[in-house]
């Protein structure tokens, strides 16, 4: 049966995923059997009792109690069985153990941000240690979103104005796909995330230093990566066209005019301030809607963004 599972389902990255797949496969084979029965009888009768001459009378079969009881009671028993099976696995997965690692998740059009117990924050990439129960405490800052990790078979709507839980214990190290599964507008299909399941040592190191790739990349490449990952692209274009915020093309060195009438030349300090305290200077013609990235971006990432903007002449 493994080939069927691998064909229909994503990889299994937890024990819960294996349980879900077992029930999925059970229902698949059961419904396949019923479907074959339905198709066989339909096609067989349609063929065998095809009209041979017009105007014939047929037999009077109105009901058959035994037959009707069989096809009512057997499916009833089967579906009640499926109900309990599905409910048990669901209930078991709904409860977090006491020692679960708690990570806060915030959904906002169109990005996920994560806050770890030690104060570390990250955007888009969620890092967790392998084989450790994880409890995500999630909320939304705007509309409904849904945090969906196919390889763990878990999904939970993220609702503004309240906290909701999502529990899992990943058993397979590596990178796993995260989707937003509740429609949330223009970039809904771009509201993706990466779940990194790390060894405990690697997880501890990540909390300390961030992604090691950061230190190997050229600053401008890192900046382009942050531009996409942190969601700058939702509002700032790089081709000079107008978005919800000023385009990055030709920004560096330009003299900007602000809503209060003052002006300034765009330099490293101006960009840094705009990232960390975006309401300090708002360019004329734009709304003060940009969120702060204080604590969300590491120093090296801010330097990268500055380098990237410098390149966009």
């Amino acid at each position, binding site marked *: 049966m493994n080939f069927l599972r691998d064909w229909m*389902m994503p990889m299994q990255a937890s024990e*819960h995923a294996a*349980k*879900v797949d077992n*029930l*999925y496969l059970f*229902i698949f084979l059961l419904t396949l059997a019923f479907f074959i029965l*339905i*198709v066989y009888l*339909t096609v067989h*009768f*349609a063929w065998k*009792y*095809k*009209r*041979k001459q017009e105007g*014939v*009378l*047929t*037999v*009077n*079969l*109105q*009901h*058959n109690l035994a037959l*009707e009881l069989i096809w*009512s009671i057997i*499916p*009833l028993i089967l*579906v*009640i069985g*499926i*109900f309990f099976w*599905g*409910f*048990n*696995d*669901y*209930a078991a*997965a709904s409860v977090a153990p006491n020692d679960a690692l708690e990570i806060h998740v915030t959904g906002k059009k169109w990005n996920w941000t994560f806050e770890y117990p030690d104060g570390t924050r990250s955007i888009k990439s969620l890092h967790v240690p392998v084989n450790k129960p994880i409890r995500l405490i999630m909320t939304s800052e705007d*509309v*409904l979103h849904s945090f*969906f990790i*196919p390889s763990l078979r*878990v*999904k939970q*709507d993220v*609702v*503004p*104005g*309240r906290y909701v839980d999502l529990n899992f214990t990943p058993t397979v190290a590596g990178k796993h796909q995260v*989707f*937003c*599964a*509740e*429609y949330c507008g*223009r*970039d*809904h*299909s771009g509201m993706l995330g990466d779940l990194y399941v790390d060894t405990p040592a690697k997880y501890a190191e990540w909390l300390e230093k961030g992604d090691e790739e950061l230190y190997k990349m050229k600053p401008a490449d890192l900046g382009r990566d942050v531009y996409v990952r942190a969601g700058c692209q939702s509002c700032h274009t790089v081709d000079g066209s107008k978005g919800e915020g000023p385009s990055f093309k030709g920004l560096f060195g330009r003299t900007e005019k602000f809503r209060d009438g003052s002006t300034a030349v765009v330099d490293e300090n101006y960009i840094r301030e705009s990232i960390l305290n975006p309401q300090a200077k708002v360019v004329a013609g734009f709304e003060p809607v940009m969120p702060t990235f204080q604590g969300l971006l590491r120093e090296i990432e801010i330097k990268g963004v500055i380098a990237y903007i410098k390149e966009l002449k």
Partner: protein
Amino acid sequence: MADTVATPKAHGHVEHHDVDYLHDGSLLSWLTTVDHKKIGVMYLWSVLFMFFLGGVFALLVRLELFAPGKTIMDAETYNKVFTLHGAIMVFLFIIPSIPAALGNFVLPLMLGAKDVAFPRLNLASFWIYVVGALIAVTAMVTGGVDTGWTFYTPYSTTTDGSVALMTFAAFVLGFSSILTGVNFIATVHKLRAPGMSWFRMPLFIWSMYSTAIIQVLATPVLAITLLLLIMERTFGVGVFDPKLGGDPVLFQHFFWFYSHPAVYIMILPGMAVISEVIPSMSQKTFFGYKATAFSSVAIAIVSFVVWGHHMFTSGQSQLAGAVFSFLTFLVGIPSGIKVFNWITTMYRGSISLQAPMLYALMFLILFGIGGLTGLFLGALSVDIHLHDTYFVVAHFHYVMMGSTAIAFLAGLHYWWPKMFGRTYNETAARISAILVFIGFNTTFLPQFLLGSRGMPRRYYDYLPEFQFLHQVSTVGSWILGLGFLIMAGYLFASLRKKMDAPANPWNARSLEWQIASPPITHNFHETPVVTTEPYDYYRPFEPSVKEHH
């Protein structure tokens, strides 16, 4: 002239009696008619136009998804297009399709009545539908709507576009649906011909009656919900938006309290048509008449207490999830009983494989897939994975389109000769039916696989690993479109012919086949007296309608 149906004693000319209902073809006679047949036909052209419009949007959605990233439109346009596809198909096509178009035409005929109980109310419900449709079209061209047909808050109360207008359209359309329901309930209770006891009613009537009960009881809840949404959006009254002290999950409860029963407003009429077509095309007594009749009523009742299965991941309590999951499995049983009854009715019959029966056979297979895949979604742990993925999209298309729309086509081909007095090209109809079947499955079977592999729904862009299955699906939509193009061709062609349809082309036994095709304005020269069961195909035919000399 408009009053003649309401006051049938007001005239007595023989020539007038013999005029078929299509005879007076002036525009005014159509627009002001209180004849249930003409109203049914006006509904028919309206819903067919809406089906065409919704279908064009569907083809655009599939074309955009042929490749990841931008193919023919940007993300904002795509979001509007899939919203319009859903809203048009649900509110303007599927819900009114069988009850308002076929039901209006057939239900009084089957009961041996001269019209529905409230003919003027019937005309009012048609015009309310037209007004609702016009408001919806206004919303489309003045900003559009990008919320999805479910209007989930707080997205729907904060996004731009004509959301308030579109929800108002759905609000208005709801009244059309309620009035049709009230009319059918009263008609079934009061206007059955002498001798037509409840258990002599064709199963079509039982199913339409169950549908009408849901329409009357559930639709007001949608009206209230949409009104609250409009109040919040327009006047800032906080009901659903947490920023205003509301609860967004409350909206989902309200919405699905209507919209799950609405799923049965859509499928029960499909079952109604199949319950007529199969015994008549098989010339066979219906197997399990009472079980099927009571199954319709049971489905109508249980459908009110399963709405929470749309919300397993919404943040509702685990206990609520468990209760809704259990009830959901129970509602599957009466549907299963019906499927077995339909199949057993074919056993030892004399089965004609003409177009209506081809569609009925397609229904059995497609409804089988639609119903059985519901078991995956009813099971809590499995649904958590599949919720809001393409698996759900495929599942409900098998039920809404593969079952209800296919049953609508079965009914359309079955009653077409009665409605217009003309036959259509049978060969073209069979070719089209086969193309529709192949196209439908090519479009939607791959979507189950997309969904179980994790592809979320309502995605403009997708990961490269999903591309192949999306392309298969898009090619399927073209085959489906071709099938419908051929259908439009032979149906329009048949209308240009002289009237050639016999009164009873299927050798069927219900009352509508015992009168002329097309029927005369007052349906029956004399009130029929029913002395037989509805599906007595085991003994020689005893007409209930007297020959007119």
